[in-house]
């Protein structure tokens, strides 16, 4: 391993409301290594690499590249130094094709170069880098994984020497993630360097040469990936709160007899006109947590959206608390008291340009002509305290929060809202282990204490096993099960997920 290439020295950053995002953090990035940046939600990981990428500027501190002090005030400058960032949300223009998107950033072609020539170049390079993508495909038709692949390809075309992955792999299914890590290993073996931001310790241990841990804006320490133990890293990340992390099965619910969520031969059409959900029969009783495991893209999103009334069912019936709500729209479903944690929280779960209080009011005070703000602020304060959301105040805009805290805002609002049922799709994705454990506990408590029927759809099999009272597997739009978690062998469930 070669010497340090980039040094971020004594970097400090404060945000609105006096939130200290970074406090004199010093960290180095070496060529030929994978550096994992770990930390709980809001620890300052994203802020640090956004400073390196020129998105933010540091209040104090300096950046050295190859021993020379540099100013990185914009991503364009960062790219000149060979630093490219891939974020959680693909920065592509949906209406353009892959080649058109990539051509926008390329400097080795002029305005008169034919798009065919650029396409041939991209195709050649994508083969060289081992990234399979059709240059002529419109971006809106790509899956999330393919979009992230295009982002990686863009980084390579921009001759990246250092790739910053800002939770870029968080929403990827496990199998796809493994492919990405393989690619990253190859990239670093050729002398490149990668900084991976994640909150999944096992992944960091798997892939990283070194692990740097941030906590509340401070660097706790840097450990070697090969010698680090999961417990030690956890303690560095969470301190005493690490004790709250558990993957033990949560107490089983005592479901009542009443069926709250029911589908009968449900068929739902997907975005491309295909049958995404095919004849699903599902029953969730009051107080019961039913888990649906499966690899992303097997109809889970279409199923949850149809249950909520956000997508039309092409055939079959949906009953919520005995009421036929098939194709009646989300208004009727919400009327019954159904909470919804969507798979795409930034689109359907929250409005980031509004405050936490406004987001709560939009849901909770839906039916009143006048808003009772004192009631809204009471709920907001309680959620901020219970879920430990790091936010300057309930009237702060959501967009100033870190990704994890945004997710906590979405999840807490919906768990607290639900009266009869909760439909949760990947509720802990983007959350650190302590927060994820807390959310799982809250979901289970809602089922046990309030008799709420919970449909938990997750790609995280550990989560499914920990919380569910019965397990289904969804594959190619069909539902398999139910299986009691104590009897369902993990290998069988995994097999059903991939057949």
């Amino acid at each position: 391993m070669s010497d340090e290439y980039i040094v971020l020295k004594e970097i400090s950053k404060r945000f609105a409301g006096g939130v200290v995002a970074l406090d004199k953090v010093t960290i180095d990035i070496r060529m030929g290594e994978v550096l994992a940046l770990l930390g709980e939600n809001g620890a300052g990981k994203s802020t640090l690499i956004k400073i390196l990428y020129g998105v933010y500027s540091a209040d104090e501190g300096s950046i050295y590249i190859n021993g020379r002090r540099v100013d990185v005030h914009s991503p364009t400058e960062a790219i000149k130094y060979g630093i490219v960032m891939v974020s959680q949300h693909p920065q592509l223009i949906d209406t353009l094709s892959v080649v058109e998107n990539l051509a926008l950033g390329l400097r080795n072609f002029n305005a008169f170069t034919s798009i065919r020539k650029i396409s041939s170049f991209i195709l050649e390079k994508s083969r060289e880098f081992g990234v399979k993508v059709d240059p002529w495909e419109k971006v809106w038709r790509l899956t999330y994984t393919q979009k992230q692949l295009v982002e990686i390809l863009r980084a390579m075309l921009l001759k990246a020497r250092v790739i910053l992955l800002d939770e870029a792999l968080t929403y990827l299914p496990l199998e796809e993630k493994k492919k990405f890590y393989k690619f990253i290993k190859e990239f670093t073996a050729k002398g490149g360097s990668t900084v991976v931001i994640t909150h999944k310790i096992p992944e960091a241990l798997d892939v990283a040469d070194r692990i740097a841990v941030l906590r509340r804006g401070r660097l706790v320490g840097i450990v070697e990936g090969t010698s680090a133990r999961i417990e030690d890293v956890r303690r560095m990340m969470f301190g005493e709160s690490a004790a709250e992390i558990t993957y033990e099965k949560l107490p089983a619910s005592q479901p009542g007899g009443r069926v709250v969520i029911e589908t009968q031969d449900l068929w739902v059409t997907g975005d491309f006109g295909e049958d995404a959900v095919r004849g699903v029969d599902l029953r969730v009783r009051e107080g019961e947590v039913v888990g649906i495991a499966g690899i992303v893209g097997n109809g889970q999103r279409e199923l949850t959206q149809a249950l909520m009334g956000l997508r039309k069912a092409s055939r079959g019936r949906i009953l919520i608390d005995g009421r036929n709500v098939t194709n009646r729209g989300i208004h009727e479903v919400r009327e019954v008291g159904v909470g919804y944690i969507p798979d795409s929280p930034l689109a359907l779960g929250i409005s980031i340009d509004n405050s936490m209080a406004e987001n709560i009011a939009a849901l909770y005070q839906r039916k009143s002509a006048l808003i009772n703000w004192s009631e809204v602020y009471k709920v907001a304060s309680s959620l901020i305290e219970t879920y430990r959301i790091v936010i300057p105040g309930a009237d702060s805009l959501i967009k100033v929060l870190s990704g994890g805290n945004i997710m906590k805002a979405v999840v807490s609002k919906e768990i607290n809202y639900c009266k009869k049922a909760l439909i949760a799709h990947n509720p802990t994705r983007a959350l650190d282990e302590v927060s994820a454990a807390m959310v799982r506990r809250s979901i289970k408590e809602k089922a046990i204490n309030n008799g709420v029927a919970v449909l938990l759809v997750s790609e995280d099999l550990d989560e499914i096993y920990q919380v569910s009272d019965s397990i289904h597997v969804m594959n190619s739009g069909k539902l398999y099960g139910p299986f009691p978690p104590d009897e369902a062998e993990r290998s069988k469930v995994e097999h059903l997920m991939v057949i």
Partner: protein
Amino acid sequence: MRFIVVRRTKPHQYIKPLIIVLSLLTGMILVAILLVLIGAHPVTTLVTIAYSFITPQVVKDMLLLTMLGCALLISFKGAVWNVGAEGQLYVAIIPIVWITLYAVPWSASSPPHQQVLVILASITVAALFGAAWGAIAGALRAYVGIDEVPVTLIMNYVAYYLVNLLILGPFRGRYVYGYIRTDDLPDAYKLSINIVMQRTGNAFLDGFLEFIRAIVYYAYWVLAAILVALLTWVVFNYTSIGLRIKILGSNPEFLKAVGVDARKTILTALALSGSLVGIASAIYYLGDLTRLTYPIQSQTASYGYLAILVAWLSMLELPLIPLSAYVVSSLRNAGRNMQIFGLGGLESTLILLGSILLTYSTLRFLTEYEVRVVK
């Protein structure tokens, strides 16, 4: 040493009004420099423009544009672009003409309370007509998916021709001395307070008294502007519909996901916006216009279009609407004065407006970014 532009991590408290004032000053200086080319002394240009900000003529325009700016703010906040205030303004006058001249005309034998009732009824029906006119574009956008910008724009012309048709036909006045227009609004229904002030001979004092006279003359307008601004503030801060409109403007998908019908919200935003235009329209007709002349499109002062500028200049911030309205009114006034004082023709006015708006568009980035000096 060099300048760098970095994204703000926290909003600057006074940056928005500061940008408006800075744009104004830069625009004025720019136009003064440009007019040197036609031989105008820069000091004369600057004094003429500055004078336009303190003349009584700005009072009327400012009050009306404040009301219209608030009306447009309602829809613009929801990213629903109502550019049809001009049409809504004239359509809302139609029922007032009918009520005041034909349905309940004033006569010597009319009971005194008729005056108040007719004025209130006029304001109410104007609000309803404005809302209905706005709702047409709202319904087309919400339920048929037709962009509201061309629709509201085209409906301005529909409104002009509808009003023209009525002036040529049923609304044509009997006491118009051969002109093609409606009869004058009866004095009893006029919303203005006329006072006479003796001139003192002191230019400064007379100017000040003229200002007072204008404010008293438009006292009802002041009241209406305050009420409209207050209503807008209440809508956005205390009502569900206001919150829905704000969320519609930032994330319509989330609005749907909480169980709100986004289509109804679009419709309501345009209807509400139209209804406030209707209120402004009633105040304008009862307080100043008092009759409609054919062809209406060549008589209009284009307040409906200027209001778009007011809303845009305010960066969709309600407290900045009166300031923006004041700036736009004064610039309009400055354009007139520059022509009167021989500082070019219409082109000078347009250069002045263009310079200010160009500077404003450039400086707007300061709301999101800051400029730093680095060594």
